[in-house]
């Protein structure tokens, strides 16, 4: 067997820390930030039966953060009786979005075509948003599975972007900007977003200007949202592992420096 090097120990330690804390199955109590409260209140304020557009604007690699966020949100939406219509403006969001909506809808015994629908993917996101503003049906003549637009009762109730109660973008990149700058500015639709942690600071200015109605970010945001809707999920389970992994990285930095300074002082003496 090959000799284990220091990096192997570092790897092993991380695996133990993360898996260990996850196996504890603890869901720590946490303070909910005003951002998350604002989003929750906004979704709550939509009347039951409202049709909302949910846009999956992310890649598959962002799933660890996106999935808990989207799941918590969809649970809230379906639980409240909102009727989401899904689309994707990034290719990899298509399959992910379709599956997620299918799964959460099943938890709430919702029916495809009546309580929710999924339209699929359109490339050229700016063109797609502009075109949705004019006509949803022309942008997506068929849904993702191939049904003609008018064959689904839910879709017969919406014609253009402004008919939706809100647009919720679930994003790991710049797409929220386009929803705000085109969707909101031109067609006056309310936009809110669930985003990965790295994107939060980029969108803060939009939230404070009111262009973005509400925003929730990262695994932490998912955990807080789960707390508000009272259903545990991947977010809260991941929180403890997240904090533990940070402390672990700090410990590694410390150990690295201790090793460096002890070997250096030994060399200095020798």
């Amino acid at each position: 067997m090959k000799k284990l090097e220091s990096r192997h120990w570092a790897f092993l330690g991380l695996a133990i820390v993360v898996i260990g804390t996850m196996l504890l199955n603890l869901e720590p109590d946490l303070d909910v930030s005003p951002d998350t409260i604002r989003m929750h209140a906004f979704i709550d304020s939509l009347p039951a039966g409202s049709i909302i557009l949910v846009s999956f604007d992310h890649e598959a690699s962002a799933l660890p953060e996106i999935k808990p966020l989207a799941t918590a949100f969809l649970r809230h939406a379906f639980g409240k009786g909102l009727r989401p219509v899904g689309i994707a403006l990034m290719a990899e969001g298509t399959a992910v979005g379709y599956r997620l909506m299918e799964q959460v809808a099943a938890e709430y015994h919702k029916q495809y075509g009546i309580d929710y629908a999924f339209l699929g993917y359109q490339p050229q996101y700016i063109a797609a948003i502009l075109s949705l503003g004019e006509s949803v049906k022309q942008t997506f003549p068929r849904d993702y599975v191939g049904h003609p637009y008018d064959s689904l009762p839910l879709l017969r109730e919406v014609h253009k972007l402004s008919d939706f109660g809100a647009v919720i973008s679930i994003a790991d990149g710049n797409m929220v900007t386009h929803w705000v700058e085109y969707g909101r500015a031109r067609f006056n639709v309310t936009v809110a977003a669930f985003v990965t942690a790295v994107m939060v600071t980029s969108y803060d200015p939009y939230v404070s200007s009111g262009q973005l109605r509400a925003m929730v970010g990262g695994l932490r945001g998912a955990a807080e949202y789960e707390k508000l809707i009272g259903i545990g999920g991947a977010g809260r389970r991941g929180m403890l592992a997240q904090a533990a992994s940070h402390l672990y990285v700090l410990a590694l930095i410390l150990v690295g420096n201790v090793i460096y300074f002890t070997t250096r002082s030994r060399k200095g003496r020798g």
Partner: protein
Amino acid sequence: MDFGTIIAGLLTLAILTFLYRDNPIYKLAEYLLVGVAVGYALVIAWKSAMVDLLFTPLFGQGDWSLLLPLILGLMMFGRFHARTSFISRVPLAVLIGSGAGAAVPAMLGPRILTQVSGSVTPLVGTDGLPNWSGLIVIVGVLSTLAYFFFSREHRGSLGVASKVGTWFLMIFFGTTFGYTVMSRMSTFIGRAEFLLTDFLHLTR
């Protein structure tokens, strides 16, 4: 547990074995991933570029302006043979030229001028006290720019300025590293969640 989850779980473990060292199981997973990803990209490009952007409007709706991109695209096929590969230089020139032309205003506007004017703040606050944070920003921007000054060796006052610039650079690198660790860790937490919950059923 469905078949898909078993496959996904095994492949997840196969990739993770790389952390110990390279081995045939990882290698097999790697070749499979690369192959499938090339195939996936082909299918998506065929549908979203070839069919939706080119063939449907060109042959379906008679938009003949698309003949030019079609010809340029076909010229790429010159690369199939060493002796005809020179033909592909034309479509490459289109991409490089138009990219450069688009980059000039994009770089000058948002990249350079907006960044400079974004740093402009009054030196004294409304309360009559010096605007320390604004001053820090200005010192940081100018000293880091001094670090990027190439025409002279960094000695004398330029040397001092560029040294201060490296300190600012280090603060930037430190904070980005610290800040990004959070999202990097969640990538593994996400996979661990999949393995423990969906694949091994150890947590709920």
